[in-house]
């Protein structure tokens, strides 16, 4: 929003902008009580969910002696979400008149993505999954670690919509809490992979010469391992306890996934290095880091975003495979892979235990694949393949 815009706004409206800090306050100050009430109610629900969530979350993770997400971080996440929802509601109520001008890249991409039906379906699925995992403590009918919530191996019923497992634990509750862990592992591992890969690829492409050859030889070497074998080796040799093993798995999944990112970024940097705007930056006397981080990388990131979206899905599949082999997150912490493994022993008598977590993985990975395809078509039409 430009400063000119701000001056033209009447003082009451300017005061109302404060409302962005606390969702609903803006509406209240502007005298709009219905949207204000709705937003306050929503904030209260979110706050309750967050606080109630902590106690449940602590109860879940204390047996292992670790917390997955720090309460303060969770609280911040909640406020961020509340603020975004509030902002969207605000914009809906008071649309900002837009001066006709050149179509921006963002507008083009957004329009392209909105027209991509499969991509929008994936986005909706990912949003649904994320909100389900965030609201888990409110939705989950039982404590996922509580034994004997019903008779062991009860088929799906009204009390236990997805049945119970061998220890009488509620499968739906375990599925929801497991989703939190499986999704977090996917996000964090891909974040590590993307950071490492971008750094390595950017340095290799920008510096070139011997460093480039050395880094790319390392990439070739690591790509010579079938990925799953490397994962099995590291997690099998270093089996740690509790939280340390969870961190190990995230780290290993991240550090075995960066090679493709490095290759993508390197090729992008090699192409961008020769472009006029980079030459102009050099001529202006900018430092190497400023050119690399400020000029080249922002233009190289589109394919990385696409790759990472797809990689979240495949990382979740790898995590499930590791857990299935008994090399993943140690029990009793639920993840989808662990649940399939547990269900495998009683597949014939209680098929629901292995079936539902598998369907959950299938749905999650499919959503990330759809989202990735949609982003690819929207961000870079040159990369378009398939339908």
């Amino acid at each position, binding site marked *: 929003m430009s400063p000119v815009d701000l001056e033209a706004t009447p003082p009451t409206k300017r005061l109302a902008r404060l409302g962005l800090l606390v969702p609903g306050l803006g509406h209240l100050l502007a005298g709009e009580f219905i949207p204000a009430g709705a937003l306050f109610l929503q904030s209260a629900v979110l706050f309750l969910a967050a606080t109630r969530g902590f106690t449940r979350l602590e109860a879940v993770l204390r047996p292992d002696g670790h917390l997955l997400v720090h309460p303060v971080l969770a609280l911040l996440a909640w406020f961020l979400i509340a603020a975004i929802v509030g902002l969207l509601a605000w914009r809906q109520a008071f649309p900002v008149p837009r001066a006709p001008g050149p179509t921006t890249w963002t507008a083009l991409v957004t329009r392209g993505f909105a027209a991509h039906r499969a991509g929008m379906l994936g986005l909706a699925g990912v949003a649904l999954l994320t909100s389900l995992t965030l609201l888990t403590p409110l939705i989950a009918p039982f404590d996922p670690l509580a034994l004997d919530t019903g008779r062991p191996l009860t088929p799906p019923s009204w009390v236990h919509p997805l049945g119970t497992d061998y220890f009488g634990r509620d499968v739906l509750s375990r599925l929801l809490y497991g989703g939190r862990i499986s999704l977090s592992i996917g996000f964090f591992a891909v974040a590590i992979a993307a950071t490492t890969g971008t750094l390595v690829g950017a340095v290799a492409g920008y510096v070139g010469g011997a460093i480039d050859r050395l880094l790319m030889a390392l990439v070739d*070497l690591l790509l*010579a391992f079938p990925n*799953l074998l490397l994962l099995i080796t590291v997690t099998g040799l270093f089996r740690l306890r509790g939280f340390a093993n969870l961190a190990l798995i995230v780290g290993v999944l991240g550090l075995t996934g960066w090679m493709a990112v490095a290759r993508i970024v390197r090729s992008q940097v090699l192409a961008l290095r020769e472009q006029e705007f980079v030459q102009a930056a050099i001529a202006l006397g900018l430092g190497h880091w400023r050119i690399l981080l400020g000029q080249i990388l922002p233009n190289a990131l589109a394919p990385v975003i696409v790759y990472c979206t797809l990689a979240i899905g495949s990382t979740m*599949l790898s995590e499930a*495979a590791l857990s299935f082999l008994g090399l993943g997150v140690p029990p009793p912490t639920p993840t989808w892979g662990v649940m399939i493994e547990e269900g495998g022993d009683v597949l014939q008598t209680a098929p629901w235990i292995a079936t539902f977590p598998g369907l959950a993985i299938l749905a999650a*990975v*499919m959503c990330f694949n759809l989202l990735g395809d949609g982003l690819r078509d929207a961000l870079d039409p040159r990369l378009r393949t398939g339908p």
Partner: protein
Amino acid sequence: MISYAARKLAYAVPLLWGVVTLIFLLIELSPGTYADKYVDENMPPEVAQMVRAKYQLDAPGWIRYLALMRNLALLDFGISMDQERPVFAVISDALPHTLLLSAVTLLVLYPAGIALGTVQAVRQNGPIDTAGSVVALFLYSMPSFWLAMMLQLLVSYSLGGAIERHLPAWLHWLALPSSDPYDAVGYDAMGPGARLVDRVRHLVLPGVAMGLAGAAGTARYMRSSMLEVIRQDYVRTARAKGLREGAVIVHHALRNALLPILTLFGLSLPFLFSGAVLVETIFAWPGMGRLIVTAILTQDTPLIVACFFVSTLLVVLGSLVADLAYAWADPRIRLA
């Protein structure tokens, strides 16, 4: 072409060195050794020393590394610590099982993938195309081991149970077994024909489980490759000559559309190996996949190193096969 192959194989040497060194380093850095299984605190130190000496774990790491390098250069893989017999024998027991499973997988993977991709391309944007894409996306997003378990559940337990209950005894072979490579009872007493039938029955489910996920990926490639070919002038010429549509697709378009799939074939060889880890575990198939997992869990150094040696060789051979096959099929490609 021969010199190209030779150079490509020579490239395998530094790669093998890198892989073996990295694996050795990982084993060295990991806590504990194989000998810990037999050593405890109450043992007199000289006995503990003897146990370590038995597995040649008493020397410092760099000496063992050099010894390993020398032995590998002489293609001597040593003796498996856990199985107490030569690693070469252990691997030559397991490798044929995995190769057999891989062959069946390929028999499922490529025909299914190529057929689906071709049909999708011919009926581009129609309902068949959309349905095919959805099916491919499904298979592609599915954990392969979960698919294997669902096949066990649906085909082996449910359908197999129904067959055994409702059909006469001479049709019971239609019920596919869920695990174990052969019927434990009576395999040794079977004649060669019965053994073959038994083997095939046990291979169907693992082969399908491993093949379907790969088929989804192949179908995607095949579709886009076919779409490219189908728009070319010579295909239009074939149609203009009055050939039937089926003949145009199968005899003219398909042959050229298969070229990229050939490359894919070579590159997919090593991944059959890692996919086998999960499927072999589920179906209790005594191949390389299960061998690697047991070797890692017991810290059986010579066996781990040998398994990775074989898998890296497969990577190099796979990419060589891909290049050579491409050059053979497409005379425009010259390997320099």
